[in-house]
């Protein structure tokens, strides 16, 4: 190209340098403010990081929409679950009285709560939308103890950045950042639509994260681990979802 002058080359060089420096500075800032998701590496890392960072900046304190009782979906759709094992069946036969939720990791007072104890904690009830990443959704009333209350009871350390939660189904474990963990609508749900939480919907205990898609609301939870890093969990990608090819952050 004959028109390519020295001035243009210098301008382009300066612009490229400024761009690269800007990107490096942005990456550093994003790292510092915890805006890079645990699956932020690899081919789709840039898109995931942009989504997570943008949504964290826009939605840190926003409340999921709550609906009127007449908008509740009847009947709601219970997604298929993997067969529940013998351990679950034994607990189910005992009316889940022996179901326990262990809380450990970066906390002052590690604890193990029975279902009864969790039900005696302050309750919150909310009618929210649950959307599956497949495209379907339903609206239901969820009742439970806010996760933030349980975190208060055990006393999370200031370094805590994530809460890892596990299901009695060994393949299911997830994690959320503290913005979602401390969010008033994030519930350890034990009730639904005015009754006990049915097994098909995750009973006796399901973590409801209403600002993320359904797969972050793990059913049959048995353990919470509070941590400052997700590197030591599984393959270090944050949860079982990225290990199965799905994004860790499911706010979209």
């Amino acid at each position: 190209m004959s028109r390519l002058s020295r001035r243009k080359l210098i301008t382009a060089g300066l612009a490229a340098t400024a761009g690269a420096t800007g990107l490096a500075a942005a990456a550093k800032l994003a790292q510092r403010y915890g805006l890079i998701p645990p699956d932020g590496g690899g081919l789709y890392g840039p898109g995931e990081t942009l989504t997570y960072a943008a949504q964290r900046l826009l939605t840190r304190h926003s409340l999921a929409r709550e609906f009127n009782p007449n908008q509740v979906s009847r009947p709601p759709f219970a997604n298929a679950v993997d067969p529940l094992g013998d351990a679950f069946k034994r607990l189910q036969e005992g009316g889940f009285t022996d179901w326990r939720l262990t809380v450990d990791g970066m906390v002052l007072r590690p604890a193990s709560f029975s279902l009864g104890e969790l039900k005696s904690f302050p309750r919150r009830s909310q009618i929210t939308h649950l959307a599956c990443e497949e495209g379907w959704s339903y609206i239901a009333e969820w009742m439970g103890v806010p996760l933030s209350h349980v975190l208060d009871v055990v006393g999370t350390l200031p370094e805590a950045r994530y809460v890892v939660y596990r299901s009695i189904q060994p393949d299911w474990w997830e994690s959320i950042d503290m913005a979602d963990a401390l969010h008033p609508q994030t519930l350890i749900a034990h009730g639904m639509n005015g009754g006990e939480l049915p097994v098909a919907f995750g009973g006796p205990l399901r973590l409801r994260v209403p600002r993320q898609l359904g797969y972050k609301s793990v059913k049959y939870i048995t353990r919470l681990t509070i941590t400052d890093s997700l590197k030591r969990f599984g393959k270090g990608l944050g949860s079982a979802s990225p290990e199965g090819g799905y994004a860790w952050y499911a706010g979209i």
Partner: protein
Amino acid sequence: MADSVWGPISAAAAPAATVRPRHSAVVRATHWITTLCFLALLVSGVEILISHPRFYWGEAGSVLTPPLFRLPIPASRATVPTGYGYVLPDQNGWSRYLHFQSAWVAVLTGLLYVVFALFQGHFRRNLLPARADLSWRALSTVIAQHLRLRPASEEDAWSYNVLQRLTYLLVIFVLFPLVIWTGLAMSPAIASAFPAAVAVLGGQQSARTIHFFVSVLLVLFLLVHVVMVCVTGFRDRMRAMITGRLAPDMDRI
């Protein structure tokens, strides 16, 4: 000064039958980046769609809800009744990663395009139709010419006709914004921050349904666009959009 990368395209000033500039570098670069993103969004969008090829109106909908309509295709989930005896493989993981990454690139590219197009008067010069071209008479003449499949004139190679201008404006300022908006309205986090953006669409399932229809319109646009490029001279049009230059009278290189 202005006649650089962005160059205003002054066809009249250039001598005839020489290689002359047609599309500025930013138009060409953003055109092809958008093309790649669009294809990625289309493939990944179809993959996501087949996990639940049913559509609803309102806030919520599932297989227990009567659909607005459903597509007569197999699904990638056993929980969706389709009438087919098989289930397609689940491709949602990478499809969702790719969909959002391409959407980011497309949106950022689109912003770059709009900012520079405004700065350089691209919309005013190349896309806003002349007032005279908008009369019913002028419009019906152009439409009749298209219906009679009259070959494009050389003049058409240098400037968009009124139908092209209106179509490009519709795609850039109506369909693209609408597909971005309805896409974001499906996000539970965005819905929590901007509930009104979901409510005016009629709910999150309505947003999904509108997203589908706008995507169909964009695919129709793509098909017509490609057919017109082929009909009016594939090599010249491609060369203009790749190299930026157009030489209709020159020997084909």
